[in-house]
């Protein structure tokens, strides 16, 4: 409980700092929404009115205070353009991003662990070299490039998957078909990274005393590598999952733009482009919350995997 309270305090501090930075950035970037969206139709009166409606004419600390106190009440305000509650706008697209990032994370874990396991078990062989090469290639290729290549290959040339959108609501197969390419594009880099991480962790674990003991007892090699060694090798992997989820949500913007998927990444991107800061602030806050919750979940999972971490958490020190 004490651990959770400390984490909550840290989370609030993080949110306040990030939002303060965001508010300061907003002020330093030139441009206003009325001029961008209406061009020459934006009269000085209209611009001034929109700035006032967005609350940008107030002191930065007042803005931050008003924003945070409203958020506590669950009120993110109203979008200046569409006059809809901002929380509705974010909530409409958030599931798409979570599904995309979640699927990408799932693919990364399944294929990353599998490839890492194969590479570790075949250390020094041609398969290990090939997987090492592939992993580095995956890690070093930006998801933007992967997205375009997958689109051209599997949608345009082969017509296996649809190009744009999220699919018909209520048609699970259609939605899955729309998910395959963007999720793969996002996952590929993390597959390579996880494969290298798992390989390294497994190789280290496989040389430890208790593994030698297991071998001495005649436990089958696949069981040693796939269960006993892998469990310990997963500790560093789980530690990066929180960061991974945050990275995937951040990278989702490219996939969302290229595959024309509505999502929180493209929402932030488009809102910044038109200087719609209230929407940016709300969307960024939601991402921070997800990130914080994901990292909290990671700590709790780690404590289950490694008793030393659980003990450190109880004692209130860094594991």
């Amino acid at each position, binding site marked *: 409980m004490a651990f959770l309270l400390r984490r909550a305090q840290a989370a609030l501090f993080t949110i306040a700092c990030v939002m303060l930075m965001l508010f300061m950035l907003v002020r330093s970037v030139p*441009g206003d929404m009325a001029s961008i*969206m209406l*061009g020459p139709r934006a009269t000085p009166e*209209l611009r001034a009115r929109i700035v006032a409606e967005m609350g940008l004419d107030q002191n930065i600390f007042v803005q931050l205070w008003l924003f945070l106190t409203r958020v506590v009440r669950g009120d993110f305000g109203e979008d200046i353009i*569409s006059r809809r509650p901002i929380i509705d706008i974010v909530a409409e697209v958030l599931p798409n991003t979570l599904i995309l990032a979640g699927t990408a994370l799932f693919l990364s874990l399944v294929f990353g662990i599998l490839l890492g396991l194969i590479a570790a078990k075949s250390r020094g062989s041609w398969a290990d070299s090939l997987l090492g090469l592939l992993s580095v290639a995956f890690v070093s290729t930006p998801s933007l490039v992967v997205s375009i290549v997958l689109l051209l290959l599997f949608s*345009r040339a082969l017509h296996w998957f649809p190009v744009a*959108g*999220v699919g018909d609501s209520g048609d699970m197969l259609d939605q899955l078909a729309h998910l395959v390419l963007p999720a793969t594009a996002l996952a590929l880099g993390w597959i390579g990274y996880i494969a290298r991480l798992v390989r390294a962790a497994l190789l280290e674990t496989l040389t430890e005393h208790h593994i030698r003991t297991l071998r001495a007892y005649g436990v089958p090699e696949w069981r040693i590598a796939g269960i006993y060694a892998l469990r310990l090798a997963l500790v560093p992997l789980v530690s990066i999952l929180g960061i991974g989820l945050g990275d995937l949500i951040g990278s989702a913007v490219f996939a969302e733009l290229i595959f*024309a998927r509505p999502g929180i990444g493209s929402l932030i991107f488009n809102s910044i482009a038109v200087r719609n800061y209230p929407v940016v602030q709300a969307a960024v806050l939601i991402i921070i919350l997800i990130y914080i919750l994901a990292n909290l979940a990671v700590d709790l999972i780690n404590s289950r995997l490694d008793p030393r971490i659980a003990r450190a958490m109880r004692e209130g020190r860094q594991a």
Partner: protein
Amino acid sequence: MISFMNRRSFLAGGAVFAASPLLPPFVSAALAERKQAVVRVDVDIANLDPGNRIGTVDGNVILSVCQTLARFDAGKLTWSNDAAKEIKQISETEYTFELNPGQMFTDGYGEMTAEDVKFSFDRFINSDAKGKKLAYAEDLGALDKVEVTGKYTGRLLLKHPSPALWLIGLCDASGAILSRKATEALGDKIATQIIGSGPYRLAEWRPKEQFVLEINPDYKGAAKAHFPRILAKFIAEPKTALLSFQGKELDFTAVDPSSAGEARKVEQAKVIEIEGIDYTWISLNVEKGALADPRVRQAIRLGIDIDMIIAGAYGAAVSRAKTLLAPGLIGAWPEAPLYNRDLEKAKALLAEAGQTGLSVSFTCLNEAVPMATAQIVQANLAEIGVTVTINAMDSGAYWAMGSDDKSKDLELTLIQYLSKFDPSFQTQWFLSAQVGLWNWQRWKSADFDRLHAEGLATTDTVKRAQIYIDMQKLLDESASCVWITHGRNFFIHADWLKPCLLPNAMNWQYEYFGEA
């Protein structure tokens, strides 16, 4: 009983039936009747309030959902009565109208009456329910008041004669007739839940994804829609849109000029080209340093190779503009001089002005075509001894130049403005009063301002055309604008579809979309 089905055909039929849900959507669509057309929009719906709409996507939805007193004919700038049974011009400043009876607003908001017309236009004349002036108020700026004379009849009284009122106001989205009852009930929700009596109704909107227009069976006007459904998918990226079209997920989309060649190779599809009426030009700030000397401006105009810009930056997909108003508009000036590149004359002008080693900045958007244009201008002007520094900006910073007199620091600027069908809409941005706002040339001319005012109030078409030609001559003499292009718009559509667009290519008339 005659056996028409053997074991083999039963199995084949069964297999097709079983596999049908797995068929890609385009196969299913092809097999289905043409009950809908799928179009791509590059921006999502933002605000459907006619007076606060954001762009043409909003305007196109408004015009398909609402009636106007008169509606543009299919693909033309002429118009016919829509909600109005009769419109009479009593004088240059007075019109009377009579509505068709029995025109019902959707969603149970009752019959349209002259009170609804007054309510809709009063929002532009005065302000909305919260006292805020509408963003598009100037579209109906000539309107003084609307008087209701009967359940279906009323009078439109103008402040001054206004030949442009119908073209840019009453027939456009600003002239949409709203239900007073619905608008008052919806409040701010009008931005996304528009209620009208037009050919379509907005049946569904999934933000950032798609919207659906469904035919309004109660529509009483002449513009009856062909397709029961128009599905508009939001795809921002033009390349993704073309791929989506190639995958048969779309029936109609705009195409980037640079992709027009690729689009022409798509089978079972047609590409259409529509000359634009917008205008792209290089603005020269007449108040800034050496540019204050007209000889320097003339030298720069002669030093820039517009044909090279058309070929290099636009891939030769557009034609060259000679002046402000595009061909076909009132006041178009076919005899406008064409300034071909003349290095010797340009150098001589600079020498005459005593300019050596001149440096200027070139401000543009940080997008592909503007950047390519900037680089060509940089290379061109280097040949006459002018050093150009490119200042590429994101759209936010760029459009911020339209406020707080920020344009005073600009020198050369690449600008593209959108047009309307009436020349007064284009000329208004070059007025003296716009210096510090959207007149980035900062060129002031009392004669130009006077002619603009005259043009607004002149109803004789021939006289009016001459006024706008005279205004363009003044602009030409100022050498403050180097015209590049009016643009050209490319679209690709399925060969069975017959899209319908107004000549500016921005106004899509969904109600007139049909089958070829």
